[in-house]
């Protein structure tokens, strides 16, 4: 029998949970198809399916789903409701399953995350395993193996990220959603520019997120978006060890529009705010990064 093919769009929550999903399904014996890094065709497909006003990240997501059409038996589209009352996500995560289900004629594997109601990755994935014909025991074993593997990698990421704080170079913290900053088409070229400007890059999302989540309260008392909490908590965690902060968000991100504004008003460090939309040319961003780097380098020199 052919292996069951499971498609995973390389966008949005893939950048938080993709590794777990891939590992889980491979442990079960499925074949996993991940859409390629964002490219022009994916963006065009996404634009075709999306409503014009949708945020760039959601448009891209739909492009990745379109790519996977006819390339797999099932496509995985989990939905996130909330982790707890103070750890919610933007409403796109609430809507994503229903949007995909209405726009595409595909078999969708879906589970819901609503932790107060005991709905989480573990329960959701094991149930999906069952629906695909695997036993509960097989599911649990596959999940445990996958989560162990992921934790190793996360620990390693945190170690590397933390070590960079001791670097002698000018250090900047990137505050951005992973699905933007690690996206091949949008974030990665920006990272390259930062490297070219001889900056040490520290990522806000690569710290112990329990710790950063708790620290977020120092900057914002009422913040209830999980991902934003973890990212701004990182500012609080490393603020004495870095030289500047760069905010990168996609147009027109709902939570970022408010949270970043608040944080920038309170921040005592130099910062740069970059908003990206579907733009091929990065020249405008390049100019701004260069001048920001120049300012940091000058400041550094005069302090020595």
């Amino acid at each position, binding site marked *: 029998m052919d292996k069951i093919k499971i498609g995973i769009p390389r966008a949005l929550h893939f950048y938080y949970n993709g590794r777990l999903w891939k590992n889980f399904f491979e442990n079960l014996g499925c074949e996993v198809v991940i859409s390629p890094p964002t490219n022009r065709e994916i963006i065009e497909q996404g634009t075709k399916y999306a409503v014009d006003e949708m945020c760039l990240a959601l448009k891209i997501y739909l492009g990745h789903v379109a790519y996977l059409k006819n390339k797999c038996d099932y496509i995985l589209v989990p939905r996130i409701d909330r982790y707890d009352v103070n750890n919610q996500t933007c409403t796109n995560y609430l809507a994503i399953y229903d949007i995909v289900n209405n726009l595409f004629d595909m078999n969708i594997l879906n589970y819901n995350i609503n932790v107060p109601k005991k709905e989480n990755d573990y329960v959701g994935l094991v149930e999906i395993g069952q629906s695909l014909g695997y036993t509960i025991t097989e599911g649990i074993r596959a999940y445990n193996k996958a989560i162990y593997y992921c934790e190793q990698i996360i620990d390693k990421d945190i170690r590397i990220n933390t070590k960079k704080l001791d670097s002698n170079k000018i250090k900047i913290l990137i505050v951005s959603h992973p699905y933007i900053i690690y996206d091949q088409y949008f974030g990665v070229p920006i990272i390259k520019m930062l490297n070219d400007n001889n900056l040490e890059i520290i990522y806000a999302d690569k710290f112990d997120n329990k710790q950063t989540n708790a620290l977020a309260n120092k900057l914002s008392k009422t913040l209830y978006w999980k991902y934003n909490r973890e990212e701004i908590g990182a500012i609080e965690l490393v603020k004495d060890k870095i030289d500047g902060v760069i905010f990168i968000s996609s147009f*027109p991100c709902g939570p970022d529009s408010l949270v970043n504004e608040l944080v920038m008003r309170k921040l005592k460090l130099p910062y740069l705010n970059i908003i990206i939309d579907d733009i091929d040319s990065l020249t405008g961003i390049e100019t701004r990064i260069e001048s920001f780097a120049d300012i940091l380098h000058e400041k550094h020199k005069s302090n020595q």
Partner: protein
Amino acid sequence: MKNTSQTNKKILTFPQMGNYYIPVKFFFRHVCNCEIMTPLPITTNTIEIGSKYSPDFVCTPFKYTLGTFIESLERNANILIQAGGGCRYGYYSELQEQILKDLGYDFTFVNLVTAGNRNLKYISNEIKKIDPHYKKIKALYYLFIASKMVKYMDKIDNYIRENIGFEDEKGSFIKLNNKMLKEFSRVKTYHQLRKIYKNYNKKFKNLKIHKPNNCLKVGIIGELYTIMEPFANYYLEQELASYNIQIKRYTNAHYLLFEKGKTVKKYLKYAQEYIKYRMGADAHDNIARCKYLCTHNFDGIIHIKSSFCTPEIGAMPIINKICKQYNVPIIYFSFDANTSEIGIKTRLEAFYDMIEMRRKK
């Protein structure tokens, strides 16, 4: 910026939203020992200063309410109330407070809703910020009356909406409604309120109308603030009524406060071929309503929202699909602080022409 706390007098105010300032003002007048400033109406100036101090791609209600706060502070208000949740709205307060503090104003900020949840103990603590000695029993009693007032206002409003396009004497509905609201604001007991409501309910039913049986019917769905604040939707309902159209709209304060919680399951079941989950704010409600309007002989649907309203944007592809399936025309309006009023009127007029032509066919 001037410091507004030279006197010790407490002056409380809150943002404008339709006529709902009446029950809100009623509540605080009876419960808290302070002066209450009737919310300033939104004007072009409000939008201008609101936009000036707001982040670029925040949704429009943020700009409107921030503008109102600044105008109120300039007129010496010193206690500001904000409430909202379900989407970004829940986070408005903290940022607005920070922006206003950065502008140099001195005030107390009271936020009645946190993380989109209603929590009585939390609300009680917030009210203590206004008046530490307020009486809980009294508060509960007046909260009860205020909520009934909202209910009655919305009931009358629904009747007005369905009939105002057909009134014999132009302006008769609005005139009567204003009279009723004035009496509402003066009541002391629930009993009085009920009596006034019943009385006016009869008066409304007696207002002369000439309504054909087969008049054009249009449903309005979309984002709540834009729907409920006429200034934010450029008096859309008034415009529609001038074309002799019967208007159906669901979102009102009574629905949001007392019914919404109960309807989630019902709506999800009703529209189950389209949606499985709630989608944030009123998005899933609007999908279910869209199906209802499409299957109940409505001539058209108007979807309105403020620019960048994420939940409604998420609902749009699904709403579009439903309208296509049932072949019901729909137009979308995305209102921004810079929206051109003439553009809206042109689109509405064309929409009216279209649904009328379809009827004739």
